[in-house]
């Protein structure tokens, strides 16, 4: 099981700057699609990379799909040298992206987010317009497949005044 609520709490408590994106953001916005992994966009500054590395350390984050025994440390140096990380942790499958297609880096993604209370934490979650832009830009079959539902959901929320 991927622990969304706990992961958000861990990042928040460590003062990591992040935005919930991808399938988990879709779900929190009201989509009926299922997802196994949780994806976040994170700010790529030294001030943010250090707490991100520290926050994940207790949850044993190896690279997902990497050969067994491949030396990998999810530390500040590794994060600074990379961009996107797909990890399997004790919290579940968690991805950290430095940029989101169609939107840009953390600041642009944050500008397309809205706060949603998850377990009492005001968590920045990519809004439906942002999700639609990101999916249109990524344009893989799996992204295009969810677009009709996202657009329908956005229309439904707009017409009913739902948040």
């Amino acid at each position, binding site marked *: 099981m991927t*622990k969304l609520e706990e992961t958000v709490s861990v990042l928040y408590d460590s003062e990591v700057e992040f935005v919930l994106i991808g399938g988990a953001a879709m779900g929190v916005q009201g989509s*009926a699609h299922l997802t196994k992994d949780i994806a976040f966009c994170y700010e790529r500054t030294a001030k943010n990379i250090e707490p991100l590395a520290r926050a994940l350390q207790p949850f044993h984050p190896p690279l997902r799909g990497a050969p067994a025994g491949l030396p990998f440390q999810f530390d500040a140096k590794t994060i600074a040298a990379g961009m996107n990380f797909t990890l399997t942790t004790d919290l579940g499958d968690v991805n950290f992206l430095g940029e989101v297609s169609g939107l840009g880096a953390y600041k642009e993604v944050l500008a397309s987010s809205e706060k949603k209370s998850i377990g009492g934490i005001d968590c920045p979650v990519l809004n439906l317009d942002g999700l639609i832009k990101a999916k249109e830009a990524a344009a893989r079959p799996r992204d295009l497949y969810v677009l*009709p*539902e996202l657009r329908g959901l956005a229309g*439904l929320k707009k017409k009913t005044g739902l948040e």
Partner: protein
Amino acid sequence: MNMTAEQEKLALELIHNSPPGSALAAAKEFGVDLTLLISTLRLSPTERARALSESSTIFDVAKQLQFTE
């Protein structure tokens, strides 16, 4: 904030009688079961987050079944 009874009534009306040319009509045409959205929109964001976590176990079960068959 959860969906109010008034919002749910309007949402159901829009789902069952989607305005022609609307995004809802297009989603229905694509094959999206829009009634599922009512279930999710009844929940708070925290409840949706918990439901997502619980539903993610289905992938683990499917993976185990794949390996045992």
